[in-house]
């Protein structure tokens, strides 16, 4: 056991965990004030439900022994409840299995939460929770197996345990989840928008972000946590992690500048929401690429993602789909940009050691990247659409118009985000007790 590596991976797991509350605030600040709580709740629900499912059978489905050796799914009940792992002799000379379990748990949780931004203000909460559970089980756990489960080999290089097909057979480079996390979530977001339709009144009158400082805070926490997400994916604390760390910094920095520039040119002024959107776009794009490029390559990919997503998010009103907080425009588009640009900017001197088109490699890596991206996109889109459609047909996924009109926080959660004044509401009888005894109580103040 290496205590330095273990410390590193555990800290990174905590950092990635923080991304989900960060994302909740990032999204929450962007909706109108009477929908902020539902937006927060969709992410929180993922922390609750996917956290438990991961322990029950998610880890096993993603990293259990490959079923049939075809690289499509791990055996979901092998490590049910992680019971077989507790107390098992762990002779790894790097990190304990449980550290890896924890780290990967946070990825599953975050990916589900990412989707929620597409359906602001109109998804009933119960069906959302069901969707989250089904989607994690049927889409995320398998795809994580494809992308993150590496073959195990013995000293002589023979494969002793088969991993996922994208990671091993295809050998696409996706260091920290450009396909498994961002393209995956982006495709699911698109499916949800197609099934649920736009908010009533959209695009007029669905409101502006109600709390931009909250959005900035969320973005700050996301960036902070993303260092764990990317550099933690090295699973050891060494040069690879350090290079990835620097790339994660400059990728986001460059994307922020690029997005602000696009705004400056097209609309005259760089905005706060633009700047933080640029940060996220850059982080998304550098995620698959961070181990494969030099810092200059990271700047290029970041800038491409910042500019590309800034243009992409303006398309939704033209294409007429209400991807409310731009999950498609930022995560799907950004994920594609990053995944594909690996084929161009990969440098042999970077930790991954693969050369892309601009660094003297051929188009070989590019098509691997493209195949991986398309496979995840199609799988996720189809499955997500089916799950959402089924829920809509059976129990009804979409909030009714009255609920939307009144506000989803009140309808689904019986709460209001903010009460800056204090007039106008009184506690109901039952909880208040009879009046007399209250006054009795007040008398007891010494």
């Amino acid at each position: 056991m290496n205590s330095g590596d273990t410390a590193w991976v555990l800290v990174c797991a905590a950092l990635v965990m923080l991304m989900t509350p960060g994302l909740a605030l990032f999204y929450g600040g962007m909706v109108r004030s009477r929908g902020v709580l539902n937006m927060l709740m969709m992410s929180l629900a993922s922390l609750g439900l996917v956290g438990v499912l991961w322990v029950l059978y998610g880890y096993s489905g993603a990293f259990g022994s490959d079923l049939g050796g075809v690289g499509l799914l791990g055996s979901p009940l092998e490590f049910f409840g992680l019971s077989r792992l507790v107390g098992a002799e762990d002779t790894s000379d790097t990190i304990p299995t449980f550290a890896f379990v924890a780290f990967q748990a946070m990825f599953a949780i975050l990916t589900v939460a990412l989707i929620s931004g597409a359906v602001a203000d109109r998804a009933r909460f119960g069906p959302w929770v069901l969707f989250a559970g089904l989607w994690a089980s049927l889409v995320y756990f398998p795809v994580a197996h494809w992308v993150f489960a590496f073959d195990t080999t013995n000293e002589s290089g023979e494969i002793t345990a088969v991993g996922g097909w994208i990671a091993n057979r295809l050998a696409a480079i996706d260091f920290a989840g450009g396909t498994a996390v961002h393209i995956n979530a982006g495709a699911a977001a698109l499916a949800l928008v197609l099934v649920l339709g736009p908010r009533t009144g959209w695009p007029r009158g669905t409101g502006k972000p109600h709390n931009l400082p909250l959005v900035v805070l969320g973005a700050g926490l996301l960036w902070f946590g993303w260092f764990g997400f990317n550099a933690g994916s090295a699973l050891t604390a060494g040069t690879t992690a350090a290079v990835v760390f620097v790339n994660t910094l400059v990728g986001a920095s460059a994307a922020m500048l690029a997005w602000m520039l696009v705004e400056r040119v097209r609309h005259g002024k760089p905005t706060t929401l633009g700047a933080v959107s640029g940060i996220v776009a850059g982080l998304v794009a550098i995620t698959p690429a961070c181990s494969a490029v030099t810092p200059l390559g990271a700047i290029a990919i970041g800038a491409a993602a910042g500019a590309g997503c800034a243009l992409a998010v303006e398309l939704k009103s033209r294409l007429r789909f209400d991807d409310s907080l731009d999950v498609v425009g930022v995560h799907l588009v950004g994920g594609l940009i990053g995944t594909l640009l690996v084929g161009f900017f990969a440098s042999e001197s970077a930790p991954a050691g693969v050369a892309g088109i601009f660094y003297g490699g051929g188009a070989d890596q590019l098509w691997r990247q493209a195949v991986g991206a398309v496979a995840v996109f199609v799988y996720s889109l189809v499955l997500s659409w089916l799950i959402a459609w089924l829920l809509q047909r059976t129990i009804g996924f979409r909030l009714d118009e009255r609920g939307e009109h009144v506000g989803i926080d009140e309808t689904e959660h019986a709460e209001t985000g903010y009460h800056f004044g204090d007039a106008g509401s009184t506690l109901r009888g039952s909880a208040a007790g009879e009046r007399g005894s209250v006054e009795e109580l007040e008398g007891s103040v010494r």
Partner: protein
Amino acid sequence: MKLLTAVVQQHKVDEVRNSLAELGVRGMTIADVQGYGRQRGHTEIYRGAEYEVDVVEKTRIEVLVDDTDADAVLRAVVSSARSGRVGDGKVWVTPVESVVRVRTGETGDQAV
């Protein structure tokens, strides 16, 4: 000069504004208010304690109008703010003795 005050549903403000614009009335002053009336509020729950919110968020619109227009404006407000459900609100008219436009000092009909 009359002052027409309307307390209406928040989401009707745009419609009221449009209907007034058709009558040539462009100026008005609006504020967020809370109304008590026939319309019931809703319930909020915090850790099991239930709160009855008996106010409803409304918007209050004030429009200064010429005596001769008052009736037409009143009618326009009423019809555009109506949804037919409880809570649509009230409109009332009060006499105004004088009006001044601050910028120019103009008074009376010129001022609005």
